[in-house]
């Protein structure tokens, strides 16, 4: 592996640049105005977007709250539900068939599945509403949630349940005193990953929300469409900062494997 050693220094630099540059570029775009071509360096510093955000004017702050509330609600509902359903799938004799159904909403393109289900949302009076987007995102993230928690439910957990029963423990006691403490980490990680799936979601939100539910991704796209890179970049930074902060705090991967 001497050859690999030789390539290590440039590869390290490449990876470091590759990792950091997009965020630096986004941050720069949010505080600068690009001059006329072929000027490379920014023409001037502009803090309009951030001032707007801090003053509470415009819709950036509102979008931030909508995104936070929506993603938190999706994570808080989808993770526990997926946790419970994953247990059912994990020990079922037709596990592969159930897994196929669990994967279905997760692997089908959210917008294509959303298009197919749109009629039901319209009939239920949920299209164009935050509740509708919440429901659609919960369906979409639920599949991921099951797949995520599947590996948690193994033979060891069943043995623990049997052990508690043998020692005279009741089912609620097993849940409260055994299952909850040992599943806390998995639940926390799963919840965070589901939060991010919802936090990043654009297609399904714009489709079911009919443009009325202005989450941060919707706002980024709206600013791009109106050729306002300054505000698009600032909204983009708001999208990137929470997962970045969590990464800095936990040093854990912010996204689950596919």
């Amino acid at each position, binding site marked *: 592996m001497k050859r690999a050693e030789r390539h290590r220094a440039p590869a390290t630099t490449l*990876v470091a640049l590759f990792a950091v540059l997009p965020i630096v570029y986004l941050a720069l775009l949010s505080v600068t105005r690009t001059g006329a071509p072929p000027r490379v360096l920014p023409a001037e510093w502009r803090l309009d977007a951030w001032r707007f955000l801090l003053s509470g004017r415009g819709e950036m702050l509102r979008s931030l709250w909508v995104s936070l509330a929506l993603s938190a609600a999706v994570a808080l509902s989808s993770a526990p539900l997926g946790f419970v359903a994953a247990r059912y799938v994990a020990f079922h004799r037709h596990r592969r068939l159930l897994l196929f159904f669990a994967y279905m909403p997760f692997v089908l393109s959210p917008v294509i599945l959303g298009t197919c289900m749109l009629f039901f949302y319209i009939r239920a009076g949920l299209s164009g509403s935050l509740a509708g987007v919440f429901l659609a995102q919960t369906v979409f993230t639920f599949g991921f949630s099951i797949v995520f928690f599947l590996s948690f439910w193994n033979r060891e957990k069943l043995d623990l349940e049997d052990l508690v029963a043998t020692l005279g423990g009741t089912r609620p006691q097993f849940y409260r005193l055994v299952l909850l403490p040992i599943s806390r980490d998995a639940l926390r990680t799963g919840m965070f990953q589901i939060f991010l799936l919802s936090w990043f979601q654009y*297609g399904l939100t714009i489709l079911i929300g009919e443009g009325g539910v202005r989450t941060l991704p919707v706002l980024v796209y709206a600013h791009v469409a109106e050729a306002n890179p300054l505000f698009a970049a600032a909204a983009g930074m708001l999208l990137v900062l929470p997962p970045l902060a969590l990464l800095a705090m936990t040093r854990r991967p912010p996204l689950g494997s596919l």
Partner: protein
Amino acid sequence: MSSTAKARGGRVGLAVFLAIAVFPASGGLLYALLYSLGGVGLLSRGWTLQAWIRVLTGSEFWRSLLFSSTVAAEVVLISVALGLSLALSLGERLQRTLGTLLHVPLTVPNVVAAFLTFQLLAGAGLMSRVAVRVGAIPDTARFPSLVQEPWGIGIVLAHVLLATPFLVLLFAALARSERVSAFVELASTLGANHTQTLRRVVLPLLLRQALPSLVLLFIAILGSYDIPLLLGVQSPQMLSVLVVRKNGIYDLAQKPEAYSVAILYSVFTLLLLLRVIPLQGRRREAS
């Protein structure tokens, strides 16, 4: 196990599973199928195969499928090549700060990646300005079109930007769990040179283990929407963009076609999924 499972899994798990995973998705697909066959819908005039015939005999769907599949395959191939090279050349450094640093691009959502790619590669974007400055082209108008062009170059680049860090981390983790370095040492002791070790030991080991994730990555890109919406063109369009456009335009006659394309896409994707699940099961059992 089945009787135990029934007793323990409980009705709650089943009810939740059916209510959230099975019924909405299956119901949506069934509705789309019925609409595409004229069985339901505002303009329904009875059962007909017209929408299906139009989709299957026209060129739009096939071009879109070919375009989407090509983009997805290109992204997977390029990202795998980059991911493998970086994971193998960086080795244990990925377990330290560099590994944490590599998680940073995973915090970038698709819509932001599309925006950044546009700012970077558009006609008046950063790359064209740099190209003028270094004298590669006389003015930005001469910069080759890399976004919103029919080959999907910008779409591929944006996806590669997002997929590569994930694959570097995946291959590095697999190299550790599969004890690749021990096998490399063994192969070298038995007289294999670097190329032979790479071709016959390292790549088969890593790629076989990564296959389910790579197929899922292919599926995810095949159905991607945010990035092609900003960086793509009107024709050919990625499948998701095509379905949404056909479903959303004012001509209601196009709706059955949108649903036909959605069903075709879903069948294609679910067939791929049927291949992935046994592979994942085998991987889980092996680990």
